């Protein structure tokens, strides 16, 4: 009955039975998978190529350091300030939340907190823009960089907390036990032993979070989009110029003359984000390896 499908043992080791067809199917699947990867890479290359080729001509020292209309210096500065303020809020809270998860909470508390962090991470950023508007802008009756920073802080918080928690968790348990056995207070152990050993991972998680938040537009368009592009300012309590909302404004205006500067700003933004993302990811992997092997 199945004689045809059971190969003769002495036959050559070339495909028998239905193997030839199955190999064709397998090959087709391999080609499809490779094609998918090529497709994704092509999209990346296309986008980056556009950014670089259209943005590079716009870059100059004037572009980076002068105010509008010669340059977009205020926008770059404002983005830095907004990101710094956001990080000043998000980093301490994020690290403390991570500490709570690893040092103090039981399994249930940790699970609940991780869920909350995941939910925060999944909040659409436009919602955070609405939140910043109604919570701060409306209350202060004006747009402020600070409102944007609060919204960005909510974006950064889960990333910093999760990243820090993963690194803190890698600190060997016997370190804590040894400190406890020596009678050292918990808080001393945390400050002098645990945090320093996890510092590398914490810093890189923060850098990654900043890289993510720096590119967000939606939280800012309702909070800090009506600004004066000629003025350099570091005051977060007024509407601060920033890169993402300016690019958005230019793209929506539909005036091709303004496109060049938008591409220039895009190039600067993409360059900073990509370089810091790649570098931070590599450093994070390295500090995780160091901790888990110690």
């Amino acid at each position: 009955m199945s004689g045809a499908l059971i190969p003769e043992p002495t036959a050559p080791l070339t495909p028998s039975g239905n193997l030839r067809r199955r190999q064709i199917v397998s090959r087709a699947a391999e080609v499809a998978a490779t094609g998918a990867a090529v497709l994704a890479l092509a999209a990346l290359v296309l986008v980056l190529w556009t950014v670089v080729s259209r943005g590079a001509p716009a870059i100059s020292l004037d572009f980076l350091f002068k105010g509008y209309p010669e340059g977009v210096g205020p926008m770059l500065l404002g983005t830095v300030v907004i990101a710094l303020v956001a990080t000043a809020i998000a980093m301490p809270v994020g690290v403390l939340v991570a500490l709570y998860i690893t040092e103090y909470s039981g399994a249930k508390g940790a699970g609940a907190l991780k869920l909350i962090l995941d939910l925060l991470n999944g909040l659409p950023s436009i919602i955070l823009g609405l939140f910043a508007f109604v919570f701060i802008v409306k209350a202060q009756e004006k747009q402020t960089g600070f409102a944007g920073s609060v919204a960005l802080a909510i974006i950064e918080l889960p990333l910093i907390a999760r990243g820090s928690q993963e690194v803190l968790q890698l600190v060997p348990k016997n370190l804590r036990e040894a400190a406890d056995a020596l009678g050292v207070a918990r808080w001393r152990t945390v400050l002098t032993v645990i945090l320093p050993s996890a510092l590398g991972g914490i810093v890189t998680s923060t850098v990654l979070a900043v890289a993510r938040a720096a590119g967000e537009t939606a939280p800012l368009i309702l909070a800090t989009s009506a600004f004066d592009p000629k003025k350099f300012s570091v005051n977060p309590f007024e509407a601060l110029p920033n890169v993402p909302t300016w690019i958005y404004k230019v793209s929506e205006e539909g005036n091709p003359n303004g496109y060049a500067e938008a591409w220039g700003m895009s190039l600067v933004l993409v360059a900073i984000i990509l370089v810091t993302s790649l570098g931070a990811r590599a450093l994070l992997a390295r500090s995780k390896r160091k901790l888990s092997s110690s």
Partner: protein
Amino acid sequence: MSAAASAATRMSGHGARVSLLRRRADRLGDRAMFGICLLAALLAGGTIFLVGYQIVHGAMPAIDKFGLGFVTDTTWQPNFGKFGAGVLLFGTAITSAFALLLGGPIAIAIGLFLTLLAPKGLAAVIGPLVELLAAIPSVILGFWGLVVLAPFVQEHVEPFLHDSLGFIPIFGAPQTTGLSVFTASLILTIMVIPIIASISRDLFRSVPPELQDGAAALGATRWEVVRGIVLPTTSSGVIAACILGLGRALGEAIAVSQVIGAGSEISANLFGPGSTLAAQIALQFPGALTELHQAALFYCGVILLVIGLLANLLAGWIGRRFGYGGAVSR
């Protein structure tokens, strides 16, 4: 404090009074540290509720006026104070479904490529490159879509599809600008792929090699090992990853708003303009003058929030229920 600890403090050679101060400082420090950590945790938890509350609160005027009918009503006329999210829900559904249906399989294939097909060195290079796609800010992706993708689609893709498959309603008459539901869906596909691909890659990597060896030793081709062992073992995790990707697509406001053409009608034609919940908020809120208009947009936000949270919770539940440990923050 334990006996060992008190012994330790005594052995440190200080007098009794100093060790008493030290013990007080330690207790205080411990309590303080616990306190601020707890505070931070409560702050994180409270933020979600605060955000939710503020969005709902902002939507109250519209909720009072339109009730649940808002969800299905398709009129959106700010000048007449008439608002309904029907068109927006439709657009959100279409664009997200498209992104998932096209991007999901591509992303899964990329995950398979990175773990099972590519030599280790190549995978180490391509993997981060795919993740890089996720790092591109959405405003830049949208800008690129506006300036590069939309004209291309309008010139080459839409006419071709319309001419050859125009009898199918989704391939209707193209716009002159290329700003359409189709273009927006393509942009969303690009955004969704890296999320699903990197989670899938981690999942496929975790399939025990003994299982794959066992399958190979039975004379199975590479594809059969994937189809019979790798995919079934990771299916629940892959589904969770797709739902996370879906959540991302649902909430994307900026890039979609740049390329979707701000349409106001439900239409089956992919090549026509449209709008989504998130894009509508981004496009109209800065110019919304009446309180009702703002409230209607907040109401859109409420719907968006509910859908987004549900997607997130669903992904996490599937993962936990069927064995893949927890949703993943990316």
